[in-house]
């Protein structure tokens, strides 16, 4: 964690990049939200629903990216070998990846939250205590997706880095961040319901439409998240063992 804190502290452009994208997304979707409410007058598009959705999506995305960066920084600096000859255990490395994801999420999303307050007079905290349940679920999702990508990188090396950047965006259509899952074709809805973020965003829309908090959905999403997290963690440890067996810990980052 200290290593990544020092990296961010000494690299202002990395910090700017961390803040820039969530803020930009929030502003774009905030104006989209305002446009839709003003032009359509649709009650379906309650003020702030798109802004809330994009902020929560950024929570998940930044946690996942943070986890990815925790490994990529070591690849880029060819430091992985040094780390693994130290007393650092694989479990500690996993925790540091998760914490790095959290740290980058807080740094990246906080300005976006403030930006939404200033530009659109919308506070995500107006969601109340359910916000915590949404965030917990999405952080878990970011963690297990991040761990899956890290495991893939440990297995296939830096050649898989490109996939690491883009993989998470592949689930955006199915995560139903900006639209209800009912919009999807029936067969695709079944696939979507296998993704924990769907439960969060459906609960969010239900709550903001004036309905009750869907604790049932959130509980199901949480259980799915736990199962996927356990699977991703197992893959992560397996990838480290394979890297140790195949001698890749010294050479990862060279290709």
């Amino acid at each position: 964690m200290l290593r990544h804190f020092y990296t961010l502290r000494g690299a202002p452009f990395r910090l700017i990049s961390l803040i820039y994208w969530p803020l930009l997304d929030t502003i774009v979707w905030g104006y989209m939200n305002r446009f839709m409410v003003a032009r359509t007058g649709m009650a379906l598009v309650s003020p702030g629903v798109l802004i809330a959705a994009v902020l929560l999506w950024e929570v998940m995305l930044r946690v996942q990216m943070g986890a990815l960066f925790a490994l990529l920084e070591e690849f880029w600096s060819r430091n992985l070998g040094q780390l693994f000859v130290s007393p650092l255990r694989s479990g500690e490395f996993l925790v540091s990846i998760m914490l790095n994801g959290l740290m980058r999420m807080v740094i990246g999303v906080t300005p976006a939250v403030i930006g939404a307050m200033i530009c659109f007079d919308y506070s995500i905290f107006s969601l109340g205590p359910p916000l915590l349940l949404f965030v917990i679920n999405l952080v878990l999702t970011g963690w297990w997706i991040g761990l899956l990508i890290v495991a893939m990188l440990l297995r296939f090396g830096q050649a898989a880095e490109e996939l690491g950047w883009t993989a998470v965006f592949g689930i955006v259509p199915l995560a139903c961040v900006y639209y209800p899952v009912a919009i999807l074709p029936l067969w695709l809805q079944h696939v979507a319901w296998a993704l924990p973020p769907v439960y969060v965003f459906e609960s969010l829309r239900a709550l903001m439409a004036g309905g009750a908090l869907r604790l049932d959905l959130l509980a199901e999403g949480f259980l799915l998240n736990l199962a996927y997290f356990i699977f991703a963690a197992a893959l992560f440890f397996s990838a480290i063992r394979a890297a140790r067996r195949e001698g890749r810990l010294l050479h990862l980052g060279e290709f």
Partner: protein
Amino acid sequence: MTENAIHVRNLTKRFGAVAAVENISFAIRRGVIVALLGGNGAGKTTTLSMLLGLLLPTSGDVEVLGCNMLTERYKALPRMNFSSPYVNLPPALTAWENLTVYGRLYGLKNVRQRIEELAERLELTAFLRRPVATLSAGQKTRVSLAKSLLNAPEVLILDEPTASLDPDTADWVRAYLQAYCAERGATMLLASHHMGEVERLCGHVLMMKEGRIVDEGSPAALLARYGRDNLEDVFLDIARARGEGAGHAVA
């Protein structure tokens, strides 16, 4: 307390059909400085990686400080350390930050004090607060060495410890390492292409070729065995000889 700092038995590492290390065995007593010599592709890095727990052997045993590196690695790792010019420290961090991170990873209580002490001994103070990326190759080598000495290791594994150092600094580092091992009773295993360094520092030499240990002995014994004046010629005799046992050829 086991007499051997490092004990390797029937160690083999295969990558598919290729045997990078084939059935090697050796023991290094505590407090001894040993060189692992061999040409490119001889198996030195593979052997060192298995000693460090970075690489799992195909078969055989590795014990460091009495700990089996397959099952008890985390008991030995806090008491050993490693330096190589081929494995970097994060370049965006300053030397100080890097040493702080590794000091904490090794569980040091007084990290700051230890860094200052090493900075003074290895003459790092002038560039301690500069990013590693901005340092010269020689300065990076010294920072890497400092990192390898943070936890006052009982076993030090060094790959080309004086690479990129000017002769004066290299000589100074050798003297420092020699004094360190003598003071602390530490064991050092180094891989080096600098034969003068090996002759000066090492009490024992392991010669590797094609994944096997083809000869070993003190520098004086090897010189006598091969009838040579210096280890470089011994190295060349072994490297150019064909088949096992050819390493004993006398000019």
